[in-house]
């Protein structure tokens, strides 16, 4: 068990940026009284704060809660929401709920794939971590399908012809931010 954990962890760690504020992790643990039955809530909060779940943070949680790391890793990989890799600068999320599916979400998703040139080996992002693509099962905005969420903002009735301008618009706005 430990051996397989270590091997998958090392690939993940390779692309993990080093600075990590363990105080933040401690603060969240304290909020939940270091109670291991609150593990999922703890992990959700840490992911909200850091954007993902760095392996060193999971090791730290394991030590603090005296809860086996393989169990934590099991939980993290069981629930879809948890991510072991840092988020890209721009996240495109295509809703693939049934209503969106019958209205052509697949074509929209494929168009994103074509345009973005993703590195699918570790996580679905561009090699420079600028853009990422993921799907979500249903966000309950079925009247507006197909729906795409661009950096948290909902876009309704997306046609594949709109995809390239959506990508351009999102990446252009980030250029403005960093300047």
């Amino acid at each position, binding site marked *: 068990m430990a051996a397989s954990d270590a091997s998958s962890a090392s690939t993940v760690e390779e692309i993990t940026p080093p600075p990590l504020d363990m105080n933040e992790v401690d603060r969240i643990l304290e909020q939940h009284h270091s109670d291991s039955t609150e593990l*999922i809530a703890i992990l959700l909060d840490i992911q909200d704060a850091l954007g993902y779940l760095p392996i060193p943070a999971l090791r730290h949680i394991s030590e603090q809660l005296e809860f086996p790391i393989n169990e934590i890793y099991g939980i993290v990989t069981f*629930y879809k*929401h948890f991510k072991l890799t840092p988020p890209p600068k721009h996240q495109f999320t295509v809703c693939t709920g*049934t209503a969106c599916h019958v*209205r052509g979400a697949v074509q929209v998703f494929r168009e994103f794939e*074509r345009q973005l040139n993703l590195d699918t080996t570790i996580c679905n992002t561009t090699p420079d971590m600028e853009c990422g693509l993921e799907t979500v099962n249903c966000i*309950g905005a079925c009247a507006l399908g197909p729906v795409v969420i661009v950096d948290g903002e909902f*876009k309704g009735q997306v046609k594949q012809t709109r995809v390239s301008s959506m990508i351009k618009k999102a990446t252009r706005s980030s250029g403005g931010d960093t300047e």
Partner: protein
Amino acid sequence: MSLDNPIRSSGELEDLHGVLVERRSEDHLCISICTGTGCVVGGAESVVDAFVEVISEMGLEEKIEVKPTGCHGFCEMGPLVTMTPSGYFYPQVHARDAREIVEKTLLNNEVVEKLLYHDPQTDEAIAREADVPFYKHQKRIILAENGHLNPTDIEDYISIGGYKGLAHVLDEMNPDEVITCVIDSGLAGRGGAGFPTGKKWEICQKQPSEPKYLVCNADEGDPGAYMDRSILEGNPHRVIEGMCIGAFAIGASQGFIYVRHEYPLAVERITLAIEDARTAGLLGEDIMGSGLNFDLKVVRGAGAFVCGEESALLKSLEGLKGEPKQRPPFPVEKGFQNKPTVINNVETWANVPHIINNGPEWFVGFGTEGSAGTKIFSLVGKVNNTGLVEVPMGVTIREIVFDIGGGIPNGKEFKAVQTGGPAGGCLPTSMLDLPVDFHALQEAGTIMGSGGLIVMDEDTCMVDVARYFTKFLEEESCGKCYSCRKGTQRMRELLDDICEGRGTPGHLALLEELGHAVNTASMCGLGQNAANPMLSTLRHFRDEYEAHINEHRCSAGVCTELIQYTILEEFCDGCAACSKVCPSECIVGEKDSLHTIITEDCIKCGSCLNVCTRGAVLITSGGGV
């Protein structure tokens, strides 16, 4: 009198209610703007801001109340605006319309013609919400309140008689009477299985083990269903009141609301509502001075469909992987931390206060024998009026899809409706007159589920739909049972074969055999129903499967491997729009002359079809169109 101090008795609640009603009735003009997810995507927040701005500019804050509410249900037409007391209603409102609506409609009781809703079937302009066919054919009990309530204001809820049911229960009833009342109402679980709610409560109450727990299952994972979210976002106190009544009846002192993390607004609203109820003395210790102690905690899921299954949900509540376990023992006997636990769906809890307020006979008055009350469906897919609809049990699918839903868009043919989420099944045209209740749906080979109704038209491929759901279940299978883990994978592979032109007649027999094995040998509801989407489409749309296998024909033009794109000579004017967007540069032709697609290089992305304004791009399959 206000909520600065906790409410100490039912008398105090009644006094507060009186004050609130009086305060709001004098000449009170109110404009309600739907801020459900659908309307927010359409720009509802800027509409709210515009109304607030216009009204403050005109100095009318005292006279006109601007109320952002939960989901009204008619999501297709958002952002929605309704006015009380006039009942006027405008769909698809923009921020720029705010001034005109205030000046004309609110102040002069005059309609703004250009904003009126037009019935797509008759083109008649309709001014009042109650006259819109989408609403007129519904029986809205739970959803009706969404349109008039500010979900972040507990006083608003009390002003419509909120927590009155709880006060009545605490003052005048004993736990057994409450349970009898719920049993007599015939209320059955709205989350899918339809188990009688009162019966569940009774079994739990009789367990000797203590303490007892309550859970509200808001892990609404069925893609295409969002009624629970709308209730939590639009009327959170109704759920809290229902759970407090349940706590009194069962003898529980702690409850949980398990919500998907994908619903952040629902988490925010219910968390706020719990805090407000606690401050008001309606939750926590010694509720309304009655001695009842009951508190609630919100727990977020982390994205696992299987956690909607009750035994998996309990594992997840304990902070573990959400793997289902063998039942019996059922959660009512051994649930959260092995203590008796009642798990009910959001809509079920929301029905409880109405049953207490109006009596069980009133509830039985809606619906059919064996399926009492109303049910909320989310009507989505290829239908004109997408949205949430609440109807009495027993109305036909035809009434829902055509009378309320306004039929299929763009003059297309209805093909099927999928009920019950991924574990449900598809019903064909011949079953349009099937009454929607627990029993009838089960007999037809599908389930009620949480109430998703996904309408499909002639452009939907049923084999692709079966593959879609099977793939969904393959990804969401927790992996504990071999039959489900490998069975869903193998079924999906066989469906892939058929969709991609590798199917043989033997595939169908194998799928049927495998499907029955998966459904029989799996432990939880996910696995036991995992073959339903495939089996039900195979039962009702076998000809489509056969066309895929024998003729390599996908008549809906969906399965990429079986279709070709061509350009029709008689329609192409050589505008070159298609060749400009083609990502594989496989469309050739001079400007202003006929363009042609080089089929071997075509990746079938459909870009040309999307940009052609002359309808010259055609999908063909298996020699047919």
